[in-house]
């Protein structure tokens, strides 16, 4: 080994120790400098998020438990099968349940095909143009309009002009207007989530757009579309304002027999009872709320079950 090699080795050694020292400095300086602060903020951030969850959940728990404490005693078979009455002990929600279920069924029958159809047209068939973005923007705007406005529209168009009177049909159509934007937006998003490669594959095999949508787009989007429909249904179920404007009864001691009958719904019945001065009626309202929530929970769980059945893996 000659001298130049030795020099080289020594040089390398000093290089290595320099690197180690620099790394050590960096580590310790990092500790002194801002690592502690960053860790502190990290912990703080976690605590704040946890606090938000605790707040939200505890408000819900307080609300629910007060409803249960108030209403539990009135919840029996008689409450479900009797019509409302002046006498607290004879009062029930039969007309409300029937009205709500009929309204929801008709609302779904009208809103789902129109909503899903519009979304398919906008998302899959419409050419890119200013008109398309105009339509999309305004559908988003429509979903933000207070529902009472749709009630006024329903009163003018369905009750007066089309002459449906204050019927289940008029109420259901008004509710359809409220939830149409929600369904269209949810469906559009579900369709947009389908990768373009699937569209290309179908079209390149000689499919028409209809064959592509029917066999490949919709089957893969159903799960997401159903999620939007579940949300919309829940919204329609709890909606009161547009039905009041359309002219739902606040007292109905009969079960509607057809779509042109007068009606009341569960939320309206609850709203009516909370307005009474007697405390017993407030407890009845609480019992009504429990029933409303139970129905919503059951339908939502069913829909979620169906959605999971539909769910498929895409890419």
């Amino acid at each position, binding site marked *: 080994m000659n001298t130049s090699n030795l020099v080289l080795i020594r040089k390398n050694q000093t290089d290595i120790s320099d690197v180690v020292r620099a790394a050590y400095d960096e580590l310790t300086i990092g500790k002194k400098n801002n690592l502690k602060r960053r860790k502190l903020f990290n912990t703080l951030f976690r605590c704040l998020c946890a606090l938000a969850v605790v707040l939200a959940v505890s408000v819900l728990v307080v609300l629910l438990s007060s409803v249960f404490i108030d209403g539990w005693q009135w919840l029996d078979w008689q409450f479900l099968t009797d019509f409302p009455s002046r006498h607290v002990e004879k009062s029930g929600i039969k007309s409300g349940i029937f009205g709500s279920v009929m309204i929801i069924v008709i609302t779904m029958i009208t809103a789902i095909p129109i909503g899903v159809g519009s979304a398919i047209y906008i998302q899959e068939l419409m050419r890119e143009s200013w008109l398309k973005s105009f339509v999309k923007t305004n559908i988003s705007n429509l979903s933000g309009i207070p529902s009472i406005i749709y009630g006024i529209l329903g009163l003018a168009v369905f009750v007066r002009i089309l002459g449906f009177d204050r019927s289940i049909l008029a109420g259901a159509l008004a509710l359809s207007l409220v939830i149409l934007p929600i369904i269209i937006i949810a469906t559009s998003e579900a369709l947009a989530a389908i990768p373009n490669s699937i569209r290309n*594959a179908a079209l*390149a*095999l*000689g*499919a*028409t757009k209809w064959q592509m949508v029917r*066999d490949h787009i919709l*089957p893969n989007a159903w799960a997401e579309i159903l999620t939007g429909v579940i949300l919309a249904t829940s919204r329609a179920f709890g909606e009161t304002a547009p039905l009041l404007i359309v002219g739902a009864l606040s007292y109905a001691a009969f079960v509607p027999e057809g779509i042109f009958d007068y009606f009341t719904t569960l939320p309206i019945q609850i709203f009516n009872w909370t307005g009474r001065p007697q405390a017993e009626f407030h407890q009845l309202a609480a019992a009504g709320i429990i029933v409303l929530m139970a129905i919503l929970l059951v339908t939502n769980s069913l829909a979620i079950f169906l959605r999971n059945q539909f769910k498929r893996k895409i*890419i």
Partner: protein
Amino acid sequence: MLISDVEQLNEKMSYGLTNHSVLQADQVSVHYGDNQVLKDVSISLRERSVYALIGPSGCGKSTLLRCFNRMNDFVETFRFDGKISFFGHNIYDPDIDPEVIRKSIGMVFQKPNPFPASIYKNIMWAPKINGMDQDWDELVETSLKQVGLWDEVSDRLNRSGLELSGGQQQRLCIARTIAMNPKVILMDEPCASLDPISTAKIEELIEQLKEKYTILIVTHSMQQARRTSDFSAFMYQGEIIEHGITKDIFESPRERLTQEYVNGKIG
């Protein structure tokens, strides 16, 4: 052109007109909006041969490929001038349905895109919606055998096509295309997202498929073009600079640009 016309042509073809030009582009110019991407491109594809389109990114190879099965029709700003003949019929003729063209001129994409459905349905869907009527079991078997996938998947035809590996998925896509019994198969960088072993299998497959089909392949890999194709066309900035027998293009190109590209100096 009706399906029956195409079938008549298919019959004519089987009488041995082997050197017939299957697809011919005449002075094709394409604009996307104000942007011209193809300038007076002319090329003719003979039956049962493999053609490679090579050239740097953005030179218009994929655009040209997609002109042949009218997939560019879905681009809003697409404008087409010129003529593309398929057995003498102009495929851009107003009374020709693009769906019929796409049935006869199949396409394989860069990224394998099997449908999120069973392997079986992946194969039989297109023939079914195109109105073909035959024994689906048999069609699925022969199509998968042609791409060498039958032995690998015959016991799980009802499983999703997405459960296959990337290379298997791409062969499934090729099987799906040949199940429609097309005349031409367009391939848009079919091996770009595959590993070397899968790539080798696809290249081997192309070699076999050319006995029945005309194949046009866009590729970024000059080695692949050299290995798989009989004829090559070099494209640069929307024009075909040179085309001819693959060996000539790579070993004795006439144009300076071609020479620079195949030697790796540009692109």
